[in-house]
């Protein structure tokens, strides 16, 4: 029965994440009854969002694993890393994103097309990685340190296993794999919130469609918010469909995040 619930849980998560897959399907001929430019923007924004999330979780995930491992292996690295990440965490994520865009603002304005899109994406991934790292590294290093210092260190070290090797084995344990999975879900959720809120604010403030050369569902929501007040601007679905899709994918990440499996040790 428990296995059945597990399978059903993963199926639900897959369904909730389906907008990212559907966005990449060739749906040119599909008639939705909604304006074609809006439909095109929606698909484009979810494609870009899927790229942003995938790239961020890979970059931030690798850095998190490295920093989490090194923090426990070398306590000095742990102390320095904790200090730097605490400082980053004290700044609101949206301000971090704005600061990151500031140095490349001129380059974004003076170039168009793929160059601008790629640069904007790279800057956003950098900002999202920076803002998600403090929580992610802490979320990984604390249980890894707990496993090592309070549980396995004396016994394993007494048989000559070096600390680095013990940590590698523990990182690959079921308990830590669950932690890594939840950490990845946390990074994705935080990046999704940052992407949506950042592009919403840019759209409301600057009137452009999304972040600088970076389309996002948040920008689309901001752009079509008027349909809620003025029915002549279009049907309310233009606002609610992207909202609903964002709620779906957020729920999927929350489900993974909340799936707090019993520790395997």
């Amino acid at each position, binding site marked *: 029965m428990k296995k059945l619930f597990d399978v059903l849980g993963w199926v639900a998560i897959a369904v909730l994440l389906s907008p990212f897959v559907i966005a990449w399907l060739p749906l040119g001929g599909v008639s939705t009854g909604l304006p074609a430019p809006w439909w095109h923007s929606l698909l484009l924004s979810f494609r870009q969002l899927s790229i942003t999330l995938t790239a961020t979780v890979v970059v931030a995930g690798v850095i998190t694993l490295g920093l989490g491992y090194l923090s426990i*292996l070398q306590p000095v690295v742990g102390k320095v890393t904790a200090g730097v990440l605490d400082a980053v965490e004290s700044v609101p994520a949206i301000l971090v994103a704005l600061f990151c865009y500031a140095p490349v603002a001129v380059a974004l304005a003076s170039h168009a097309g793929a160059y601008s899109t790629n640069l904007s994406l790279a800057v956003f991934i950098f900002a999202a990685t920076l803002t998600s790292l403090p929580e992610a590294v802490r979320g990984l290093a604390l249980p890894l340190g707990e496993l090592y210092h*309070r*549980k*396995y*260190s*004396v*016994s*394993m*070290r*007494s*048989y*000559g*296993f*070096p*600390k*680095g*090797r013990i940590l590698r*084995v*523990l990182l*690959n*344990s*079921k*308990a830590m794999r669950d932690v890594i999975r939840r950490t990845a879900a946390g990074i994705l959720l935080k990046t999704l919130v940052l992407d949506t809120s950042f592009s919403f604010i840019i759209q409301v403030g600057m009137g452009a469609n999304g972040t600088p050369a970076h389309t996002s569902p948040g920008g689309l929501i901001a752009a079509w918010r008027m349909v809620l007040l003025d029915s002549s601007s279009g049907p309310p679905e233009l606002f609610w469909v992207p909202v609903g899709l964002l709620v779906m994918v957020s729920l999927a990440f929350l489900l993974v995040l909340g799936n707090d499996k*019993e520790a*395997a*040790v």
Partner: protein
Amino acid sequence: MSAVPDPIVLENFSVHLKDRLLFNIERFQPKGGTSTVITGTTGSGKSVLLRALAGLLSGPFAVHGSMRLHNEAAYADGRKSDLTTWRRILHTGITFVPAETAQAMNPALSLEQNLRLICPDARPLVERRLKEFFSLDFARFAKQYPDEVSGGELQRITLMILLSRTAELVYLDEPTVNLDRQLRKRFIDFLNKEILGGQGKTVLMASHDLDFVRALQLDTILRLEGQKLLTVDKLPENAARVKEDDQGEGAEGLVLTDVSQHYKYRGLFGDRPSWAYKHLNVSFRRSHIYGITGPSGCGKTSMVRGILRLVDGTSGTITLGDQDLVALKTRERGKDPVAFLPFRRRLAIVQQDSRFSFFPDLKIRESLTQIDKAWGGTEFYQEAKVTALMDKIQLRRGLLDNLPRALSSGEMKRMDIVRALAAEPDVILLDEPFAHIDFETRALVMQAISDYLKAKAAILIVVTHEDFDLQYFVQTEYDFLSRVRNEFPVAP
């Protein structure tokens, strides 16, 4: 006083661990307000039964039969009832005190917050009980977090918090494990006065400690044996073992001279030292069994870790042969210096908590072969050697192919001892080695260790709280506090 209804009813209740039947209980229905103890050998399923009764059984266990708790169907035809039913059961009241008591505390909350969460409004009761029976002032620890107090203090505080809940059903799983002799006496006094005998609570306890069971005012004694729950009229005598006669005149082995140990705590103005013990002087000869006793938190485990050279902050000399281990390895940086490596292989430990002695996701056999690899393929793990030791202490060979979490705490402890002996070390450090092992099996394990000691002329140090170990195993007892001079400062 009105009659208390029977809070537990088990009918044809059985639990399998994978293919192995742990127990099959036809009927078990203790009277409400009575106390029952379940004895039995290590691995017989006592803890599993208590965990099932507390609704905490998970993992590779299969349940059959029915269980009613507080007149609610907790299990019906082997199926656990839904959360709503269990909420009603728990609301009526169950307290489960696990063997590793401190596990019940949430590490992210202070002790005061834990108390409020576990038994709201019971602080005055907890404070009185801690002061009266354990001489602890709770107010001094209230703001601290579980990892900021010593293991012994945390265990005492947790025990009193859990046992001060208003629950009608109380389960205790090996409650004396890790309590020193003095504390054990006080705990018995507490149980007899405030929990057992007409207090209205239905108490169910699992224990292999027959001395402890004898001292309690219990109504019923049961034994889990041959997968059945049997009524016992009289407790069996302790499995006596003839202690070998040895005067401790073997060759000089390990000598600790003026050893002090400190840890560093982060303070407002930088790190500051906290001394575990100062000026320890003690020597251990070969082929002799030394027992180290002393109250919880006095520094016994720190001494063991200092000998293993797995802690920083050790001063003095620890001489093995003609080498000073402290000079060979002054600091623990996660890797041993080349000069220390030969000594690493001469030292082995069996920790207090053996649950973490093997890699969590590797089968026991794979963990053992990993040690071979760590030692450069020196064939530490030889099937014949390991299985011969397992046979000697009645461990099933099939356990080698199990994951650590599939072993009971007693099996895990014995497996850890097998691992230590199979490594053929020169120095064996046993830190509360028999805590989870019943007295009958314990005598076998003691014999296996004694045989090894005789064959290899090794050095054996046993940290223990238990009278049984001192009576039947230890040849020379050292009171740790009589060997240290904590009142004198340590020169910088």
